[in-house]
C-alpha cells in the first residue's frame, strides 16, 4: 500500500503554524505571570499535536525536535520547574525554531542543523534544572527516580554529545552488537540511549535476521568528538553514524552555558556565601547584556524570516484554500457584471413584455447582492490575525531597548478582508516599531517628565461605515516639530525662511516624505532605510489613507482608514472625450462646474482653480491620458482628496455612480501610474479605475510631471 502523504501537508502546515501562534501567545501570558493548568496544557498540546503529525507525515526532523520540546513542556505542566525569564526565552526560541522548520519544510528548503543542536542543549539544560538527568529520557517512572538522585556524575565542563546511529540492515548478520558499543560509550561519561523502532515492520513481514533498529544517543562527556566517533570505527562502513556537539574546540555557546551555570546556583542557594556588591554587579550586568544580545539576535532573525512570511489562516472548523475562495469571488464578480449587462439590455427594450422581465431582474439583482455579501463574509477575518503578532514583537523590542511598554489591544474582533489584513501586517509592524523607537521614552526620561514609567501602546480597530479605522497610538514624547522643520529644511522639502510659517498639518505631512527620519542616529530597531513613506504607500495600495495626530509630550496616534475589501469599489463614472473612467467615490469631495474666472494659470506649468478662497491644482484628466477634452470652462472639476491633500480633476462629464468589481491590471498587463485597475461596465466595455491617491500625489509633488506624462 502506498499513500501519497503530500495530500495532507497543506492542512498540517496551516494547523501547526496556527498551533504555534497559540503556543507563543500562551507562553507570553505565562511569562507575564499567569499560571493555570489550562494554560500549561494548551501550550503542551500545541507542540504535542505537531509532534504527532510531523512524524507520521514524513518530517522526522520536526518530529524529533518537537519530541524533546514536548518533554520539557510536560515537565512544565507537571510543575517540575518554574518558568523563569530564561526558561520562557528558551521556550519561545523553540517555538521560533519549530516555526522555522515548518516554513522550511513548506518551502522544501533544507534545515540548518546547527540551530537544532544549540536549542536542544538549552532544552536539555531546562530538563536538568527540573531534575531529569538528561534530555531524551522518557518522563515516566524512571524520570521520577532520577529526579530524586543527586545530579548526574558528569563534571560541569562535560559537553553534550549527540550521536545518531543507524546501522545497515545486515548489522546483526555480520556479528555486530550495538549493546557492546553502548557499554563502551557509557564508560566515557553519562549515556542516554533511545531506540527508534519506527522502521520495524509488521510481524508478518519481519525478517529476524535483519536489523530494523536505529538509535539516538546522548552522551555527556569530556572526551573529544574524534574519540567518541572512534568507538564506531569498526562498524561505520555499513552504518550511518553522525556525531555532533562534542568538543573539537569548545563552541562559544557551550562555554557561555557553562559560565552561566555557577551564577544561577549562587542565586538560588540561599545558604551560599553572599557575594560582595562589586562581584555581583558585573555578573548580573553581564547576564543582562547576554539576555539582551540573545533577544536581539532573535529579533533580527524574526525580521529576516517571519515578517515577510504570509499570515496564517485562522483556526476554524473549515480550512479552505485561498485559491478556491478567490475563484468563487471571481465567479461572483462575473455574475455581478452579467447582471449589470442584463439590466442595461432591459432598460433598452421598449417592449410591453419587459415589465415582468424587469421584475425578474430585480429579483436576480437582490440574490446576486446576497450572494456577493456572503462570499465577502467568508473572506472576512478578525483584526486579531494582524494584531496577534504584536505582543511578542513588543516584548522582544522592550527586552532589546530596556523600555517598558504595556500593549493595549481593542476592537480586534472587527472584521476585514483577509487579503487586506495580510497587507496590513507590514505597515502596522512598522508603526509599532516606530512608536517604540521614536515615540516611547526610556523609563527614566518618562519619570523625569512626570509620566508613568511604563508607556502604553494602543492598537485599536473599529468599523466606520464601509471603512475600517485602525489606530496605532502611544503616550510617548510626540513628534518633535522643531526637529521635523529642521530636517525638512535640510532635505530641501521646504524653502529657507518659510519653515516658521508651516502649519501643523504640513509638518505632520512632512514625516511621510521619502527619506525622512528624525532619529538622531539610526539604531538597531528602526533605521532600516524604510520610512513612513513606505507605510503610506502600502496603505495607499489598499485604497486607504493614513493620518497622524501628535501632541508634544503627550503622544502620537497614527490612524489608518481602509475600505473593508479590495474587490469591489463604489465608483463614479466620468467621461473625457469618447473615453470613460471610474473614480473611487470615497475620494470625491465635491464636483464643481468651474467658471472661467475661477481658473488661473500659474507660472510655467498648468492652472489652479479657486474654490472658496482655496487654490487647488487643476489637473485635466484628458491631459494625463492624451485624450481630446472640452475646454476647461465647459468641463466639470471633481475635487479629489487623498492623504490630506486635494486636487481638482477636470473631466468633461459625470456619467453616474456604479459599484464595480476591480480587476487588477498588474496580473494581466503591468502596473500603470495613476491607474488602480480595470472593470467591465454594463455595456461590456472595459474601463480604467483611477487611483485617486496617486493622482493627488503626482499633482502635488511635481506639477510639471503631469504635463510630461502625456
Amino acid at each position: 500500500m502506498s499513500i501519497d502523504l503530500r495530500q495532507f501537508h497543506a492542512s498540517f502546515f496551516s494547523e501547526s503554524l496556527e498551533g504555534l501562534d497559540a503556543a507563543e501567545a500562551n507562553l507570553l501570558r505565562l511569562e507575564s505571570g499567569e499560571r493555570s493548568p489550562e494554560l500549561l496544557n494548551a501550550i503542551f498540546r500545541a507542540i504535542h499535536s505537531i509532534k504527532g503529525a510531523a512524524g507520521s507525515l514524513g518530517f522526522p526532523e520536526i518530529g524529533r525536535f518537537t519530541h524533546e520540546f514536548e518533554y520539557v513542556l510536560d515537565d512544565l505542566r507537571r510543575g517540575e520547574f518554574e518558568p523563569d525569564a530564561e526558561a520562557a526565552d528558551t521556550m519561545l526560541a523553540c517555538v521560533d525554531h519549530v516555526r522555522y522548520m515548518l516554513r522550511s519544510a513548506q518551502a522544501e528548503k533544507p534545515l540548518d542543523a546547527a540551530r537544532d543542536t544549540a536549542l536542544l542543549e538549552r532544552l536539555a539544560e531546562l530538563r536538568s534544572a527540573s531534575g531529569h538527568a538528561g534530555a531524551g529520557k522518557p518522563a515516566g517512572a524512571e524520570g521520577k527516580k532520577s529526579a530524586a538522585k543527586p545530579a548526574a556524575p558528569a563534571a560541569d565542563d562535560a559537553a553534550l554529545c549527540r550521536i545518531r546511529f543507524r546501522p545497515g540492515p545486515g548489522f546483526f548478520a555480520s556479528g555486530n552488537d550495538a549493546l557492546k558499543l553502548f557499554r563502551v560509550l557509557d564508560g566515557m561519561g553519562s549515556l542516554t540511549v533511545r531506540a527508534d523502532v519506527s522502521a520495524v515492520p509488521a510481524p508478518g513481514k519481519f525478517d529476524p535476521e535483519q536489523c530494523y533498529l536505529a538509535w539516538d544517543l546522548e552522551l555527556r562527556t569530556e572526551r573529544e568528538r574524534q574519540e567518541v566517533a572512534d568507538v564506531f570505527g569498526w562498524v561505520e562502513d555499513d552504518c550511518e553514524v553522525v556525531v555532533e556537539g562534542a568538543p573539537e574546540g569548545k563552541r562559544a555557546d557551550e562555554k557561555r552555558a557553562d559560565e552561566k551555570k555557577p551564577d544561577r546556583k549562587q542565586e538560588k542557594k540561599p545558604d551560599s556565601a553572599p557575594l560582595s556588591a562589586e562581584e555581583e554587579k558585573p555578573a548580573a550586568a553581564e547576564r543582562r547584556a547576554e539576555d539582551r544580545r540573545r533577544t536581539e539576535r532573535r529579533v533580527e532573525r524574526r525580521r529576516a524570516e517571519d515578517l515577510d512570511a504570509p499570515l496564517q489562516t485562522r483556526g476554524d472548523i473549515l480550512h479552505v484554500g485561498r485559491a478556491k475562495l478567490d475563484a468563487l469571488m471571481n465567479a461572483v464578480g462575473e455574475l455581478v457584471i452579467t447582471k449589470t449587462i442584463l439590466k442595461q439590455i432591459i432598460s433598452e427594450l421598449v417592449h410591453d413584455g419587459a415589465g415582468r422581465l424587469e421584475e425578474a431582474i430585480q429579483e436576480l439583482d437582490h440574490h446576486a447582492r446576497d450572494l456577493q455579501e456572503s462570499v465577502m463574509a467568508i473572506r472576512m477575518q478578525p483584526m486579531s490575525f494582524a494584531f496577534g503578532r504584536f505582543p511578542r514583537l513588543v516584548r522582544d523590542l522592550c527586552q532589546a531597548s530596556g523600555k517598558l511598554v504595556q500593549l493595549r489591544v481593542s476592537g480586534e474582533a472587527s472584521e476585514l478582508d483577509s487579503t487586506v489584513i495580510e497587507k496590513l501586517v507590514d505597515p502596522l509592524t512598522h508603526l509599532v516599531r516606530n512608536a517604540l523607537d521614536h515615540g516611547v521614552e526610556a523609563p527614566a526620561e518618562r519619570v523625569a517628565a512626570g509620566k508613568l514609567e511604563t508607556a502604553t501602546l494602543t492598537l485599536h480597530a473599529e468599523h466606520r461605515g464601509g471603512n475600517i479605522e485602525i489606530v496605532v497610538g502611544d503616550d510617548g514624547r510626540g513628534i518633535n516639530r522643531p526637529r521635523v522643520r529642521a530636517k525638512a529644511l535640510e532635505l530641501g522639502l521646504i524653502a529657507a525662511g518659510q519653515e516658521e510659517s508651516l502649519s501643523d498639518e504640513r509638518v505632520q505631512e512632512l514625516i511621510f516624505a521619502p527619506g525622512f527620519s528624525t532619529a538622531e542616529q539610526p539604531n538597531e530597531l528602526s533605521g532600516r532605510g524604510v520610512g513612513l513613506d513606505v507605510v503610506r504607500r502600502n496603505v495607499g495600495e489598499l485604497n486607504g489613507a493614513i493620518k497622524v495626530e501628535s501632541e508634544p509630550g503627550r503622544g502620537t496616534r497614527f490612524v489608518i482608514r481602509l475600505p473593508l475589501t479590495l474587490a469591489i469599489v463604489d465608483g463614479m463614472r466620468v467621461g473625457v472625450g469618447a473615453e470613460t473612467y471610474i473614480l473611487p467615490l470615497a475620494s470625491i469631495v465635491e464636483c464643481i462646474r468651474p467658471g472661467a474666472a475661477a481658473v488661473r494659470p500659474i507660472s510655467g506649468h498648468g492652472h489652479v482653480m479657486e474654490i472658496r478662497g482655496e487654490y487647488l491644482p487643476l489637473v485635466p484628466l484628458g491631459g494625463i491620458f492624451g485624450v481630446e477634452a472640452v475646454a476647461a470652462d465647459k468641463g466639470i472639476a471633481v475635487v479629489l482628496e487623498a492623504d490630506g491633500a486635494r486636487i481638482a480633476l477636470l473631466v468633461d462629464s459625470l456619467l453616474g455612480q456604479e459599484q464595480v468589481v476591480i480587476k487588477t491590471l498588474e496580473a494581466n498587463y503591468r502596473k500603470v501610474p495613476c491607474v488602480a485597475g480595470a472593470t467591465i461596465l454594463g455595456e461590456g466595455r472595459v474601463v480604467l479605475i483611477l487611483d485617486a491617491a496617486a493622482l493627488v500625489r503626482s499633482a502635488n509633488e511635481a506639477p510639471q510631471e503631469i504635463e510630461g506624462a502625456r
Partner: protein
Amino acid sequence: MPRIMIVDDVASIRQIVTKVFQDVGYQVTEAARGDEALDLAKLKRVHLVITDVEMPGMNGLELIKELRQLKSYQTTPILILARDASDVNIKKAETLGASGFIEKPFTPERLLSVVNQVLVDAYVN
C-alpha cells in the same frame, strides 16, 4: 466491512487515518474531541476506536472510561495513540480498558497492520 473511529484534535492525523482505511474499504468516522466521539459512538456502533490522549475538553482516557460503561462497547477494541512505548498514558489507558496502543508517529503500513491484527484477534479468533 469494519467501521473504525478515529478521535484526534489534529485534522491531518484524522485525514491520514481516514485515507488509510478508506483505501482498503473500511468505513471511518472522525471525531475531533472526546465528547463528540462518545455521541457518535452511541449513534452508530463502530468495531474499533483509535483515540489520541491529549485533547482539549474530554481527553482520550476519559473517553475510554465512558465508552466502557456503554453496553455495546464493553469489548470493542480501543487503541490509544501513544508517544512511545514508555508513555505513562499506556498504563493508565490499559487500567481503564484500552486494548493497546499505536505509537505516534506511525506509517500508513504500520497503522493498517496493527489495526488488522487487533480486528482479527477481536472478531475472528
